[in-house]
Every structure is written in C-alpha cells, then in structure tokens.
C-alpha cells in the first residue's frame, strides 16, 4: 500500500495550521478562571468589588451569573460551572474574569476575595468510604458500582493447582496534549453564540452549553476542530462555559487559553485504580476462576466515571475463556482531581493486572506463558466477556500467534554486552471494545453532497485531534466512490455545517466513516449516474464514477463540475447507530480489536533504570485504512503507554497537585522511545464479516504496560505490581536478592 500524506500533514509539520487557540478577533477580551485553593471547603463569601474596579476588567462572574443550570457533566451534570457554597477539589471554579489583557485578568483574579472554611479532605477512596466520612454528593461518596458473575467461583478455585493473588496499583495519568484547553467564544450580532473551542463531540458541547446558558441549542454553533491533541481529555466541557458566560455578559469575543499549570489543575485524568485479582489455574494449564475487585478514584465529579468502571469490569478477563468469573468494581468520589475519559477507558488498568496474573500463573505451574495463553484464549465463535454475542473474528488467536513468533526470538536475559545490565523480554495480549456499548445512545451519521462547484463534499460531526480522521475520511471516501482526492472536500467539526456523527471517542471514527459510506455510496452514485446519463444521453449502465468525473469506456466523459453545473446539489444523508450485540446486556461491546505486545527491556543494575529497547505490537482490527495513520496510532499509543509504565504519575498529596507542570510530571522524550518499534497488522476478517475496518485509536495503549512489566521480571526477577515502575523499586529488589553482587562475582572472569 502506498504511504499517503495525510490531508492536514503539510500544514501541521510546517506549523502553518491555525488551531482554535490561535484565533483572534477584534475587540477580543481575555478570560481567566479563579479556582479553589482548597480541595474541600465551604464558601463563606465571595467579593468581586475590587476586581471589578480594576481598569481593563470588563466582567467578573460568579454562580449568580449562570442563567441556566449551574452544572455540567456528559451524563450527570454534577460539577458546578461556578461553585456556590462548596468546593470539592482544587480545580473547582469560583469566579471568572474577562479583561483587556491576560495580565489584567490575572491581576483581577488576585483581587477577588473568597472566604472559605476548609472541610476534611477525602484524598483516597478508602477515606471516602469510611463510616462517617463527609458526603461529597447527595447520594454519598459512591459514584457507581459494577460487577459481573458467572460460574461457581468457589468450586472452580477448588479445582486449581495454583492460585495467584495480587493487588495492583495504577497511577493517575495526564493526557498531556500539546494544546492546552482553550479557544474563543464569539457573541454574534443576531444574539447567537459561536464557540471556537476544541472538543470531542461538538453537538454534546452544544447541548450542555444550551443547558447552562438557558439558550436554545440552535442559537449555539460549536466549531470544534482541529485540536492539538485530546486523547479523551477534552471530551468533557472544560473552559467553554466560562468563555460563553463572559462573552454574553460583555458582548465581546472572549479568549481563554489555559496555561499548562491551569490545565493540570483542572483537567480530567486517567482513573487511578487499586485492583486485586485472585486467579486460579488447574494442572493442565486451564484458567478456572478469576476474582477481581476494582477500586477506582474518580475524584470530585462524575463525568464518564460510571462508564469507565463498566468498561474495566467488562475487560477484566480479557481475551480468555474462564468458567468462573467474579468481578466487583466501585468508583468512589474523593477530593482529588476529576478522573475521566482517557484513551483505553479503563481497559489499560485491568489489562495490566490481568496480564500480570497470567505471567505469574504460568510461572507457578511451570508452563510456557505463550502456551498457556493459547490454551485459554477465546476462539472465533466464543461469546464476549459479558456472555454477549460479539462480531466474530479470530483476532485474539491471530495476535497471539503473531506476538508469539516475535517472542520466540527473544534473547536470554544474561545476554547483554554491558555487565551491569540485564535484558528481558515480556509479552501481553488484550482485546478492546469499540463504541459506547449496549444501552447507551450511540448514533452515527454522515452526509455526501455534490456541491454546485463540482466538489463532492463528505461531512461528519467528528473532530480532528491529531488522530488522522481526515486521512481516514479521504481514503474511505475515494476508495468507496472511485473518485480522486482532488474531487472531494471534507467538512468536519462545525455544528452549523455537519450532521451529527456521535462522539470522536471510543475508537469509533474509522468504523463509523466506513459504515456511513456503505450506506451513502449506493444512493449517491445512483443519483450521480442518473443525472450523468441524462446529461450525456448515454445509458446509465455504461457509465461509472472515476477520478475527475463520469467515465465511459475508459474515458472521462463528464467532469464533476459539468455534472454539478446549473443544477441543485445532490445530497444524501444517513443516520444509524453503532452496531451492538443482539444480546441486551448493559454496556456490553460488540466490535472488538485485539493486540499482542512483545517488549524488550534493558535493566541497569546500578541504577534500577529501565530502558525499553524493543516494542512490537501486533493488531487485529480489520483492514488498514491508512497505513501511516494506523502506524501513528499504534506507535504513539505505545509510547504513551511506555510513559504510563515507567514515569507518568500525577501525584496528589492531601488533595493538592504535587506535579503541577511538565517539569515534574514526565512524559517520554524521543530518547526514551525504543528505536525498534514495530507494528504488524493482521488484517484478516471472516468472509461474512460486514463491519469493515475497526478504529485503532486506543488499542495501541492497552497491553504495553504488562508486556514491559513481564519483561522486567524476565530480566531481573522482579514482579511488578505498581505503575509507574520506579527505578528505586527495581534497585531495592535487585539489591535484596543480590543480583548486582552475583553480577560482580560471576563477571570477574571477564565478560
């Protein structure tokens, strides 16, 4: 397949592309948001008088200035736009200012006097669940419980030859998108509002903003693309409500662009979880019982916390067939930062635990871990993890075989040129559901038009966030219609111009673009050919669509421009839902992707530092639409997961951020990235599969952490149960077990 340059590639790499935070309007004001200095406190009074008197300040708003619902949240609007009596975390907004300059707005924030009475801080789920703990929300401190049971867990445990029980801890991860939250909100002359702010679901933002502003949805236009990264982090509202309220109150465009520190303080993060797994295996190597408890720290507000816990519960047993499963999950409100949507959506956490269990169990019964996985892996016709029918593929076994072939070539751990280093190889596999799941509104749609200027316009409600959706749309559209890329124009991310396609989340995009084209192409081409036949006087059957226009006998007879001229545009739309299981099991997924990961690490015995030297990812997600986009998603996902495994942790102490900026919260640099980074797509699908290419936005992040963890064990014999893996933990373990000392004596003969 040819390596295509993505439509937005050149503008991005040359820095010419204008992001929404680059926009400027005349008379534009700058907004700043005052957030709580306390993780939990009662607001006694708010005085804005001094701030209002500061020259250059044009508006100061508090809870009194919210005309509609003072709350937001994609499912449950439990987060106040501007807090009235209680603040529940340090990102809670209390007031906002619009001024002539950023400096004046910043100064004005200092002049707002808020009196607080601090309340006890619930900085862990354990504290929040204690008897007598203050209640953070009317329904208590439990946001959500979820679980899944099948089989007789006790009698299956009784049949086991080995049982492994371990508690895994995973950190709070920052999306670390390059472009922090921001944009410009413009009040229009007709009383409507245009919101130029990146998001992953323009129509959902419009809905939420309408509710806050007490304004009809139709009066709000959300331009939500392009974005400098999101990874789930801009799915929920962030600065939009403040920009909108300030723009309406001043009648002027208001720009807000959060600094990195403001971003870290207020943005959502990946859920920290404590996962306890007890898993049993019989003497033949068959998994028999798998018992899991998940405790998620969801922070101060709900956002999609419940769905993330549901997802984690669903993916707890991964691609394995286990007769008895008992999973219990709880997502708990705390006074920590809000946890929410993040690439992988709860799958990363449980997969780290599960694949850790698998490696430990194989070792416990002295079986090759690949062989053990093969013995227990789901087959094409097996039911999904919640007992639901799923789109049947052989993806799990395909990726296992592919990864096993790489794994078989692994080097023995002693083989390292440097006598103070140890090499190790590890493996992990996973499956990951796409779409929102059964019982959740998950509509999609698209529109094809032949415009008056002869361009074929393809429109979706999706947003470009770096993931490459434009390249996907271009490729699928031109392939399906048979035209050239010059013939089409792509329209996305503007609620006034595009149809609703649902959210740009959950690995939906590629899949929904393909499904839309399946529905649009036939009626659209039919209309084109009918008109062409009339215009040329040729029989429809002899005409076909080709690059540039309508073709007959290997020649272009009529250009699209000629076809379009002097006639009404041809418009075909479609609306449908993301495919779900025929079995009505709440939140269950239907379309899954699979990955098998092999990681090689080098552990420095003197420092405990881990260097990932190779990362191989094999994927099963149907046909590859755009090779470079696919590669980018998987390699990028791999690097993001490498950071999750080795260095990323938004540390909070007593409800305050310790890592406040990217100088202490670390993401991998290019030197941390393995030079040998391989992506292998197993593209085959069963002949009868009619679901096409699946999205790969998340799958590249899921099974990397456990593969690295298993490689560390292979290298130095340390069982990792906490992320990120601290060099300190490694060094302590190797010291205690005399690995370094052994190395000194065993190598004294020269190595």
């Amino acid at each position, binding site marked *: 397949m040819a390596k295509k340059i993505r439509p937005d590639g050149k503008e991005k790499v040359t820095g010419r592309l204008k992001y929404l935070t680059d926009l400027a309007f005349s008379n534009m004001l700058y907004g700043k948001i005052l957030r709580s200095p306390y993780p939990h406190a009662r607001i006694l009074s708010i005085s804005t008088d001094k701030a209002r008197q500061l020259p250059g300040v044009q508006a100061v708003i508090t809870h009194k200035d919210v005309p509609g619902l003072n709350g937001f949240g994609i499912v449950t609007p439990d987060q106040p736009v501007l807090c009235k009596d209680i603040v529940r975390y340090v990102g809670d907004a209390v007031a906002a200012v619009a001024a002539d300059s950023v400096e004046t707005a910043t100064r004005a924030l200092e002049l707002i006097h808020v009196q607080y009475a601090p309340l006890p801080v619930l900085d862990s789920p354990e504290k929040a669940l204690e008897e007598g703990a203050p209640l953070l929300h009317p329904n208590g401190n439990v946001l959500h419980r979820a679980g899944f049971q099948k089989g007789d867990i006790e009698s299956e445990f009784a049949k086991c030859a080995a049982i492994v029980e371990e508690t895994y801890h995973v950190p709070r991860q920052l999306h670390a998108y390059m472009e922090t939250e921001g944009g410009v909100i413009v009040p229009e002359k007709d009383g409507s509002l245009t919101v130029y702010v990146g998001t992953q679901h323009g129509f959902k933002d419009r809905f939420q903003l309408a509710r806050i502003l007490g304004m009809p949805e139709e009066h709000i236009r959300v331009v939500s693309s392009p974005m400098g990264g999101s990874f789930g982090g801009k799915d929920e509202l962030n600065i939009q409500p403040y920009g909108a309220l300030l723009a309406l109150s001043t009648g002027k465009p208001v720009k807000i662009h959060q600094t*990195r*520190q403001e971003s870290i303080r207020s943005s959502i993060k990946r859920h920290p979880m404590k996962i306890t797994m007890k898993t049993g295996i019989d003497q033949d190597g068959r998994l028999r019982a798998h018992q899991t408890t998940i405790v998620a720290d969801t922070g101060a507000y709900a956002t999609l916390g419940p769905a993330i816990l549901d997802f984690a519960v669903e993916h707890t047993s991964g691609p394995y067939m286990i007769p008895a499963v008992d999973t219990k999950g709880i997502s708990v409100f705390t006074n920590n930062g809000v946890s929410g949507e993040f690439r992988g959506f709860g799958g990363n956490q449980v997969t780290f635990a599960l694949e850790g269990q698998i490696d430990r169990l194989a070792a416990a019964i002295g079986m090759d871990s690949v062989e053990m996985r093969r013995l227990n892996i789901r087959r094409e016709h097996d039911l999904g993890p919640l007992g639901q029918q799923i789109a049947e593929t052989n993806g799990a076994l395909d990726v296992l075989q592919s990864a096993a072939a790489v794994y078989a070539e692994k080097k023995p751990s002693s083989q390292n040129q440097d006598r*103070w280093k140890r090499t190790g190889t590890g493996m992990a596999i996973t499956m990951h559901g796409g779409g929102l799941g059964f019982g959740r509104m998950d509509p999609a749609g698209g529109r094809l038009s032949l415009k008056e200027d002869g361009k074929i316009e393809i429109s979706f409600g999706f947003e470009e966030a770096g993931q490459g959706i434009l390249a996907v749309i271009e490729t699928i559209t031109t392939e399906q219609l048979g035209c050239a890329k010059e013939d089409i124009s792509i329209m996305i991310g503007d609620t006034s111009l595009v149809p609703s396609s649902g959210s740009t989340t959950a690995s939906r995009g590629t899949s929904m673009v393909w499904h839309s084209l399946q529905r649009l192409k036939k009626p659209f081409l039919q209309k084109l050919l009918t008109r062409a036949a009339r215009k040329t006087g040729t029989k429809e059957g002899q005409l076909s669509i080709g690059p540039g226009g309508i073709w007959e006998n290997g020649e272009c007879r009529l250009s699209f421009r000629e076809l379009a001229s002097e006639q009404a545009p041809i418009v075909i739309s479609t609306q449908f839902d993301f495919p779900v299981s025929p079995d009505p099991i709440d939140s269950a997924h239907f379309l899954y992707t699979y990955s098998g990961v092999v990681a090689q690490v080098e552990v420095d*015995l*003197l*420092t*405990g*530092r881990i*260097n990932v030297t190779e990362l191989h990812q094999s994927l099963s997600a149907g046909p590859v639409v755009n090779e470079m986009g696919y590669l980018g998603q998987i390699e990028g996902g791999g690097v993001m997961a490498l950071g999750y495994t080795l*260095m990323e942790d938004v*540390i909070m*102490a007593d409800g305050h951020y*310790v890592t406040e*900026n990217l*100088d*202490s919260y*670390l993401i*991998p*640099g290019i*030197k*941390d990235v393995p030079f040998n980074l391989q992506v292998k797509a197993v593209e085959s699908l069963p002949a009868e599969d009619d679901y096409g290419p699946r999205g790969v936005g998340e799958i590249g992040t899921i099974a990397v952490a456990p593969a690295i963890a298993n490689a560390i064990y292979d290298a130095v014999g340390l069982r990792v149960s906490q992320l990120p893996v601290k*060099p*300190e933990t490694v*060094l*302590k373990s190797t*010291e205690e077990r005399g690995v*370094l000392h052994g190395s*000194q004596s065993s190598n004294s003969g020269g190595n």
Partner: protein
Amino acid sequence: MQMQREQGVVFPPHLISLEQLRELADIEETVDGSIRIGALTDLETCRTHLLVKKMCPSLSEAIGTIASPAVRNRGTIGGNILYGIGDAIPILLAMDARLSWFCENGIRSEWLSDYVNRQESLEEGAILTDITIPSLVKGHCFFRKIGRRETFIPSIVTVAMYMEMADQNVIRSIRIVAGGGVNTPRRLRGCEEMLVGKQLTDDLLSALSIKIKEESALIGDVFASANYRRTVAANLLLTELQSVR
C-alpha cells in the same frame, strides 16, 4: 530562568544582558596547558569545541546531558555554574576548575569548589568572566548523570571523578564529586582521603561504598529517596573504580 518563571519566581524589574560581551565567549588553551572557557560561551559551543573534546571529553559529555539542544544553544557555561546546581558543576569540580571574577579592583580568581560551597558572588557586583581547567593529561575522568528520563531532565544523581594512578593499582590522587537535584555538588573529601596512596582492594571498595553513601548525604524528594540517590552514587563510583583497577 524560564523554568523558574513558570514556577512563580519573581524576577527583578530590570535584567541587564551581557550577551554582547563577545570577549567572554571564547575558549583557548593557555601556555601551561590548561583550558580557559569564557563564562558567556554557550553550552553547545563548549560541548562541540575541539579543545574541550580533546582535552576534557568528560566535560563535553556532561554538557551534552544538560537540558535540550535548544536550551544548550542559548544557555551559557557561566549561567550553568551560577545556577549553583548546574549539571556542568560536578565534572568541573572533579577537574579542579578555577573561576575568575571581574571585581571592583580587577580580576580575582578562586576554586570552583569555594564558590559552590558559598553559593554567592565573590563580592557584590562581581561578574564571572571565565573558568579555567588545569591539564588533565595524566589522569582519568568519569561522569554520569541519572535523571527520571533519558534526556531533557534535571539530575537526581550526578557523580564525577578524576584520578591519577601510580603503579601497582595504587591511587596517586583522586577527586570524587556527588550531587543531584537540590543537592549542591560537593567533593567527597573523606572518600578521597580513604583512597589516596592505597591499593584498590575489595575490602577498601566495600568500605568506600558505605563512606560514599554517608558523606554524600544526598537528600531525597517525592520522586527519588535519599537512600536511592546515595546507593546509585555509590554503585556508579564503585563500578568505575573497579573497572580501572
């Protein structure tokens, strides 16, 4: 400075740029074989300068671990030293570098180690003009910086060493330095005394390991404990000593 500004450090209302003093931005070999580096020489020039690469490659290596290429193009060697915990300091201490200051009554010079212990200008208003590194041809230099990722990262542990060997595995002279994070890089003089004139036996090295951890007194933070830093410092220095014996 950019990082400090982000962290909320308030700058003086006026800053005077010395950038145009090109005389302070050169590198030369002096008659006695030492190297003089102008304080305003940018880090990248220092790193790639032929004299530095030839005469003190460890300094070139150490400078290569400072921040990122873009920062090294702007930042100067003098700035790195005056930061007090800059990554160039440990190796320069091991090399026994001297500093020259432009003072009220002309140029005054002092040992880098004296400055580092004091952490302020030689006298009020003094301007650092250059750094002088003595000839190191007789000895062996060593430098390692450990951070929380591979590059573009502050140090958590940095060690540096210069030693000259006599015959039969005996150390003639040695300078050992440890630092990292908020720990000001310091000579470990007690460790040095343990080694001078001695043969590098296993017993001596074991004793040295304990002494390094104790004397370096590195303190920890939320990202890396004191114990970890001290252990790593000892491991790195010890294995280097083992490798030369």
